[in-house]
């Protein structure tokens, strides 16, 4: 199976260069007005420009230029983030190009443009044709190439009825003929949603973003007041301040860094999900992922491989281990189920030798294989010499032994119980030599193999305060053993969709946020109820509609990555907010002494950076303020580095880096810029 991961992004510099025109176009005040902090900068830039034209000094002109640069850099950050999505959207859009649909009408079919299909229409699609819209297969079975949306080149099978009936518009039927009932209106199909998502067009501010914006506006008001109140105080003190200086101070103080990067951080967060082949239907869902307290994980496919594998054999008293293994292998040679294969592989690995004979040789020698059926619940082989080997469920094999005149050994039941107690499935092996009664040889342990590394991941989740609950249809005994091995915190055994729903509601009643994955139609209510419901792309359209995310890879393990991405998004916002506010301390020490050193020479003591002159000091702060946005664009797009840690460890770490770092960094940056500015004539 070849896999085409989403094309990685082109280098940041190239994207930045390509995004420049868009960034310049976004200088339009109507666009900037959507971001209150940057709008203040816009007004400040306009005022400074007018002042610089009226009274052109090098200082005023430089401030005006750098203020416009501040907005441009903010726009650039947003444009780069959007630009990344645009490329993806363009390739998606190609798949949406006008396809003609063959709509079924009474007794025949008609050709209509795909865009004219309505809910409930039935369309015929044959090999080589593109499916015109989202829908469910109601007739037939076909292989379908979904690489247009999943990036996965291996074809998938879709068939009428069951949980694999959903098809997506824009994908191609590779073989056979199906009839699809349309379930999405034109313009609201999966591909349409994807396009608007990756382009950020449908992006709405998330609750946390709204709250953060309020904080940023509050800070802006405080600084606006502090600057407004400064002029009367300055006049009183005998040092009238020029408007350019006041405007420069204001822009340096208001939280421009986070204000400029906030929208890019949000878009980049969604983009990171898309890179993981997950589509979130809203930014709110991504944030909720960061808040999740409880993960409901399906055992099969997520925690275990899903196939039971032979892991040990238990011979009965008086039976050679080698004899048991030989019989088990013989009985499994024609068994193509994963369990059967695993027995053959297990024996080969244990005996560390090439098998004596294979299925083909045996068949040629006249052996007859007995396939597994739901009625007999056993499989095996009848050899030409008349001997027979059987393997199967304990009760079925015991019944066969008795029917053929034998007597199952007494210690069998104990072994079967012990293997069950380990969370494994016991498979009983019996054989019968020619002309004698059959005899039970022993038990093969079929183990549900837990994926490697799961216990570690669950431990990490626990450290982050997230509880994992394993959902399984197994009996409680088996479930308990697997839960213990995998290291999950809790399990729900013999789970029905109703049980799942109950569990989610109980968790939520305790104030917890729940995330789960699901694919079947019967998962839909639970997916809708969960705070984060990740539907598998292979699932039904009901499931996809109910969840707030869709995983194109249909990999249930990804829930863990989704949580990490959600957290990373929030951490990035918080870290840059902290950094932005902490920056102000240094800016004050650059600007305030510079403003008033003329009136009160003693204030030079507040200039620990030893900045050259009032003009260079103020300009350095303005330039730093603009450049720091540019410098943080990669971080905003990538997200701050994230490791699963407890909240208190994470707080300490990020406070140190972004809080303390945010206080120190501008002292160094402003000093360096000041040193460079002193080289320019006319500013000193």
């Amino acid at each position, binding site marked *: 199976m070849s896999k085409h991961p989403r094309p990685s992004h082109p280098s940041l510099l190239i994207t930045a260069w390509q995004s420049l025109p868009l960034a310049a176009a976004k200088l339009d005040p109507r666009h900037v007005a959507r971001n209150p902090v940057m709008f203040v900068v816009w007004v400040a830039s306009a005022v400074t420009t007018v002042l610089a034209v009226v009274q052109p000094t090098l200082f005023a002109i430089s401030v005006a230029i750098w203020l416009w640069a501040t907005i441009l850099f903010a726009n650039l950050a947003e444009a780069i983030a959007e630009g990344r999505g645009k490329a993806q959207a363009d390739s998606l859009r190609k798949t949406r190009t006008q396809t003609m649909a063959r709509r079924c009408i009474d007794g025949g079919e008609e050709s209509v443009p795909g865009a004219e299909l309505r809910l409930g229409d039935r369309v015929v699609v044959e090999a080589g044709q593109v499916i015109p819209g989202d829908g469910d297969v109601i007739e037939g079975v076909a292989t379908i190439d979904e690489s247009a949306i999943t990036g996965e080149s291996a074809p998938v099978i879709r068939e009428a009825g069951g949980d694999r009936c959903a098809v997506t518009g824009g994908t191609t039927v590779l073989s056979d003929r199906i009839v699809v009932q349309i379930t999405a209106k034109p313009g609201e199909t999966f591909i349409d949603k994807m396009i608007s998502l990756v382009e950020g067009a449908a992006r709405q501010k998330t609750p946390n973003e709204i709250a953060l914006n309020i904080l940023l506006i509050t800070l802006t008001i405080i600084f606006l007041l502090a600057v407004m109140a400064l002029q009367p105080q300055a006049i009183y003190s005998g040092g009238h301040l020029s408007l350019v200086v006041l405007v420069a101070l204001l822009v340096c103080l208001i939280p421009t860094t986070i204000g400029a990067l906030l929208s890019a951080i949000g878009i980049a967060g969604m983009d990171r999900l898309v890179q993981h082949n997950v589509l979130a239907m809203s930014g709110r869902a991504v944030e909720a992922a960061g808040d999740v*307290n409880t993960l409901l994980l399906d055992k099969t496919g997520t925690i275990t491989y899903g196939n039971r594998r032979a892991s040990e054999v238990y011979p009965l008293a008086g039976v050679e281990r080698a004899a048991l293994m030989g019989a088990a292998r013989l009985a499994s040679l024609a068994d193509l189920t994963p369990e059967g294969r695993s027995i053959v592989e297990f024996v080969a690995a244990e005996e560390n030798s090439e098998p004596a004979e294979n299925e083909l040789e045996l068949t040629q020698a006249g052996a007859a294989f007995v396939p597994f059926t739901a009625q007999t619940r056993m499989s095996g082989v009848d050899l030409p010499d008349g001997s027979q080997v059987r393997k199967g469920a304990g009760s079925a094999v015991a019944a066969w032994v008795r029917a053929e005149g034998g007597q199952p050994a007494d210690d069998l039941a104990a072994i079967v119980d012990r293997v069950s107690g380990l969370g494994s499935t016991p498979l009983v092996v019996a054989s019968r030599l020619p002309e004698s009664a059959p005899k039970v040889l022993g038990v093969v342990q079929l183990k549900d193999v837990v994926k490697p590394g799961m216990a570690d991941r669950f431990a990490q989740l626990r450290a982050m305060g997230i509880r994992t609950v394993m959902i399984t249809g197994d009996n409680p005994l088996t479930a308990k053993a697997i839960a213990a091995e995998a290291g999950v915190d809790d399990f729900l055994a013999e789970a029905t969709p109703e049980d799942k729903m109950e569990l989610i509601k109980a968790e939520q009643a305790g104030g917890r946020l729940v995330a789960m994955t699901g694919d079947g139609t019967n998962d839909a209510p639970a997916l809708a109820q969960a705070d984060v419901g990740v539907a598998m792309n292979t699932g039904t359209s009901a499931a996809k509609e109910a969840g707030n995310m869709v995983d194109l890879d249909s990999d249930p393990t990804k829930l863990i990555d989704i949580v990490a991405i959600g957290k990373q998004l929030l951490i990035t916002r918080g870290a840059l907010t902290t950094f932005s506010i902490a920056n102000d301390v240094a800016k004050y020490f650059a600007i305030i002494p510079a403003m008033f050193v003329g009136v009160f020479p003693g204030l030079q003591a507040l200039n620990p950076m030893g900045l050259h002159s009032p003009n260079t000091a103020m300009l350095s702060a303005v330039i730093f303020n603009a450049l720091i946005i540019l410098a943080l664009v990669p971080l905003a797009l990538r997200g701050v580095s994230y490791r699963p840690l407890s909240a208190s460890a994470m707080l300490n770490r990020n406070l140190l880096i972004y809080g303390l770092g945010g206080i120190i960094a501008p002292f160094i940056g402003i000093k360096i810029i000041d040193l460079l500015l002193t080289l320019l004539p006319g500013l000193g």
Partner: protein
Amino acid sequence: MTPALSAGLTIGTIAAVLAIIHVPLGSWLYRVFTSPKHTRVERLVYRLVGVNPEVEQRWSVYLLAVLAFSTVSIIGLWLLILLQGFLPFSQGRSMNVDTAFNAAVSFVTNTNWQSYAGEAGAGYLVQAIGLTVQNFLSAGVGLAVAIAVVRGLAREGTDRLGNFWVDLVRGTLRVLLPLAAVAAIMLVAGGVIQNLTEPTTITSLTGGDQVIQGGLVASQEAIKELGTNGGGFFNANSAHPFENPNGWTNLLEILLLLAIPSALPYTYGRMVGDRRQGAAMVSVMAVLGFGAMATMMWLESVGSMEGKEQRFGPIWSAIFASATTGTSTGAVNSLHESFQPLAGGVALLNMMLGELSPGGVGTGLYSMLVMVVLAVFIAGLMVGRTPEFLGKSIGSREVTLAALAMLIAPVLVLLGTGVALLLPVSAGALSTTGPHGLSEMLYAFTSAANNNGSAFAGLSADQPFLNIALAFCMLLGRFVPIAAMLALAGGLASQQRRPVTAGTMPTHTASFAGLLIAVILILAGLTYFPSLALGSIAEALS
């Protein structure tokens, strides 16, 4: 003993006494406000005013009760002051309409800014049934609001915050009155006067006439400190020998004004069911409060005696000044404008922090909670979760309300100072020019907007413009945060509590306490640094 050692011992003694009393006092406050029982006297009061004490109020109703009660109090006190000339025990004293309005607002908002001279403006009757009564009730209102706000954090799934009338009556009758009575006796024992004597005129050594006032001083003095009020019986306030005769009464007054505000975090910890929260909060208050105190002591250790009482000296004056500005009390035992410029700046900064180190009775607790909410929001995102505090999500509603509560004082101070410096009518009231004059104006608006009430001295504030401007600062500075915090608490009470996990940002740890201190200092610093630079810092550096 080196000065550093003696300073350390002094602070250590104050801290030790407060540490000893904060547990029993905090527990007592906890019992007072959580007990279901009413005393017989309380029942009588409820029956007289027609209140059903068993009915709890929504935040909006609680707020309405606070506002109604305070409005009636202001109008009543205003009228009492204006009409005192027609009433007995008034010694013929009177005030202008605007001065009386300023005084009424000032005492009802627990500010106790006095633009009138204590003994010259208010007769015995106004002092006793007007000012002293409001000293109790305004502190009681602050306490009630703080308790209601804490209930919002402690409760879940309800929209009720308690009954304002019950909280006010209990706080006054069970806490403030008995404590004030004990304190008054201790003050009398220390030499504070308590009489109804007519003023006595004596001939002084230099031959001039001197009028010696009497009055019910000790009883007012006790609640003046205990209720973090600060309005002096005499104009000289706690520098007057009848209010604060010696070192012992000085220490007692300092302890009285710190007692309830520093015990309330313990009550808060008990009420939210996690004493560590209260311990973290009181630690933050202690670091800020004692930090400011130590700084002022160090700055004053140069030993200048200007504007200080001989019996207290620079160090005990600095301690008193730090305690009074850190508790929104506003009582003074020295002239704050005579401090070293930077020490005066620290006194200013104490108020600019928002009166939370440890702040006024009740107000200190909810002012600190405002900052906690903001700190939780700023840093909470950094742990990768929607910020939450005590299991309650801090979303846009909470941030908006906390921001409003935090924003009002800077708005009033910065705009007020700016306008007043430009207008000749108010700029002319300054006693001097230059940075010191700027500090006088800045101090007046900072003191009013943060409901402190202390004066830098120097500013002739008894004039219509400043009286009314400062009265509005006091009103908005008091009731906007109260409204915002009650609304915040109402929302939090109805929220479902989220369980605490390893993923929850802890708000009781040393690192959160450090963060909270940083947020408080940086927010105040960023807001006021330019003003301080042009005032106290420029004065110190020139």
